[in-house]
């Protein structure tokens, strides 16, 4: 609750167009917004686009923030919507590009690191294959540690729907990653 701690002065200053206030607000939320964007898209370039769009939208529409929900929820809602919009606009041809790039970046002589990167690539790819509605719930849960109630507020659905989506996501991920468990891959 960054903004709640510092009061509403920051938002008011942003509404007045004060550049320092924008910067302060950006610094308060930059890592959260970027993290959600990156974990949802699985691609750093796409994450930068989503994060940029989110902050541009945030600064343009900050006058619309009425305070019915918390500011955190409002920001998460913005980034979640940008993620889903971005997904609709661009269907990625190579869903594990980032994982593959990470593998390629690993030092040639470090086999253990290479294997770790590969397993991470499997997890990323499995998450990336989830339908967007399930994936955004997973990202908000595991990247941001939001409760079911908070996720429900961000996604404008009921906590029961969130629970159902996460359950379906877990089942799908267990199914897709089960072969790695049998190989003992997680102990690498």
């Amino acid at each position, binding site marked *: 609750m960054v903004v709640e701690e510092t009061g509403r002065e920051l938002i008011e200053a942003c509404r007045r167009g004060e550049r320092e206030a924008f910067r302060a607000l950006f610094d308060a939320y*930059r890592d959260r917004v970027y993290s959600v964007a990156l974990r949802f898209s699985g691609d750093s370039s796409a994450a930068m686009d989503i994060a940029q769009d989110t902050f541009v939208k945030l600064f343009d529409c900050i006058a619309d923030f009425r305070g019915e929900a918390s500011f955190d929820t409002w920001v998460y809602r913005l980034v979640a919507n940008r993620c889903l919009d971005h997904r609709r606009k661009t269907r990625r041809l190579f869903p594990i590009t980032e994982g593959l790039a990470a593998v390629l970046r690993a030092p040639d002589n470090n086999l253990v690191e290479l294997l770790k990167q590969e397993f991470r690539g499997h*997890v990323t790819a499995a998450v990336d294959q989830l339908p967007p509605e399930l994936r955004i719930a997973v990202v908000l849960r595991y990247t941001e540690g939001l409760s079911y109630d908070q996720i429900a507020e961000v996604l404008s659905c009921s906590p029961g729907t969130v629970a159902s989506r996460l359950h379906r996501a877990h089942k799908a991920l267990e199914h897709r*990653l089960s072969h790695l468990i049998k190989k003992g891959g997680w102990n690498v």
Partner: protein
Amino acid sequence: MSEWLDLRLAEELRPVKAPEELWLRVSAGRRSPARTARWWMIRMPALVCVAVVVLIAALQSRRQTGTLESLAARELEGSIMLDLRSSDAAEIAAWLRREAGVDVAIPPASKVQLRGARVIRRRDTRIGEVAYTVGGNTALLLVAPAGGFYRAPARHGGTVWQSGRQVYAIACPVPLAACTLCHASL
């Protein structure tokens, strides 16, 4: 849900630090109120032009086609060039059925003097026109297939109406006189 998956997701999806260049991109991409106003100032004239063009095109389209009633009035104002000159009701009816695909049943006991018929083409529609004289006035009966642009109230009693699958319109300086084509008792 298994614990390993919970742990693995928490590890693999952990938060990360945003790149420093994100602020530069946000600063560059953010639209200031002045920029938004400029955006509208540039595009508003173009939008107004498009709206005017669309409005003119719509008005022209309406003028070109109009309703069957207005078409009949315009025909009456112009010089009537008949394709078929005949005073025989049966011949006119047969000719219009063949050339325009419309059925015109003129009672034999009509009080009017038939002059002939012609076919008017509007877009893909053929409209049959019967020209006649009544009480010294020229009158026209236009018959078009219903549907598409030509629609009319089903009520018979005005100068345009629909009956079955056809729309009818009459034009005459004395509209009631035009009705005697079919209603001799008037």
